[in-house]
């Protein structure tokens, strides 16, 4: 009898997106016999008080998780400012010599709209 329950109690991970620009976010896990039932239960179990735009259901056993040991591989030194804008901050002063504004992140991301001439 207790074995028959095992097939019903499969673990599914639930992910959701708040709106069409938000990233997918992990919510929680639930037990269900299959993806379809998991899907119809997911929203009301984890998002009944917040807006939700999309839901993903993933079977836990399909996820390759990291072991405690492997998580060591995620650490790195803090010497990589050449990869970020932090390493190029001096440009601001440089451009000023040429009487130009620096094209920083804020400026560049503002270009999605109309560019002022």
């Amino acid at each position, binding site marked *: 009898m207790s074995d028959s329950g095992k097939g*019903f109690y499969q673990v599914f991970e639930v992910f959701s997106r708040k709106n069409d620009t938000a990233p997918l976010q992990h919510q929680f896990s*639930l*037990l*269900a016999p*299959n993806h*379809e*039932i998991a*899907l*119809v*239960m997911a*929203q*009301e*179990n984890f998002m*009944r008080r917040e807006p939700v735009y999309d839901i993903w259901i993933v079977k836990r056993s399909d996820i390759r998780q990291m072991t405690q040991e492997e998580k060591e591989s995620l650490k790195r030194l803090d010497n990589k400012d050449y990869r970020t804008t932090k390493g190029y901050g001096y440009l601001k002063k440089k451009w000023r010599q040429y009487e130009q504004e620096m094209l920083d992140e804020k400026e560049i991301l503002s270009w999605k709209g109309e560019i002022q001439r």
Partner: protein
Amino acid sequence: MEGRDSTMKIMKPEELMQHPEYKEVLIELLFQLADDDLIIAYRGSEWLGLAPHIEEDVAFSSISQDTMGHAAMYYQLLEEMGVGNADDLAHGRKASERRNAVLLEEVNGSGHYLHEPRYDWAFTVVRNYFYTQAKKVRIDSLKSCSYVPLAQVAVKINMELYYHLMHWKTWFIQLVNAPGEARERMKNAVAKVLDDFAGVLTLGSKGKKMAEFGLIEDEDLLKQRWIQAMKPIFEQTNLNLPNNFGMKRGNGRNGEHTADLDEAIATLSEVYRLDSLANW
């Protein structure tokens, strides 16, 4: 003749004063809609904590809440029309004054929600699925209701029906396609629900007038739409969908009800009746 003009729209409850017959038929329709949703949500609320699976308990409860919320919106429309306070209409009316379909008042199974409940999940899935589909057909028609406040409510309610339908349809198809005992239970539940399903689809003795006044379309047309929606599901699951359904235990639209409704009203109004004038 009042209301014969199919383009006539009534924008506000105050305008109903000039159309007494229209108002009477509208009240009848609103009671059917409100009482149906109230009683099935009440039956759903009895399941709380007792569903076959914890996650499903949570999901089902949201549907019961939505559905009771829909009932509250209809009672609110009645309140605005001067018929009575929404809570009094929901709690204070006798069974003979109620207009819900008999199928929806039936107990969830033997026993009481506090004592030896042997609730029937197959019956619950089938009743909810078939009812939600019928509700969807009615709501789609009500979106062009001549009483504009009701049309506006229908647009809102429609939004929540997609989830309800998806939820019940998923359970229905999976259980009916499961081997052995489950399929048998589901087939019995389908037979039981269809025996009284004509009571859900009918609009009662004032149905013709409702169509005439442009409140909702003719019940035969709505019935055909329900059959059209259900046919592929029946075919897909190898079940037989008859052309006619029963009204075995009476027509709730005419105030005919069973002892199940008396008992439900006694329970749902137990605290309210302690002092119906008190603020709770």
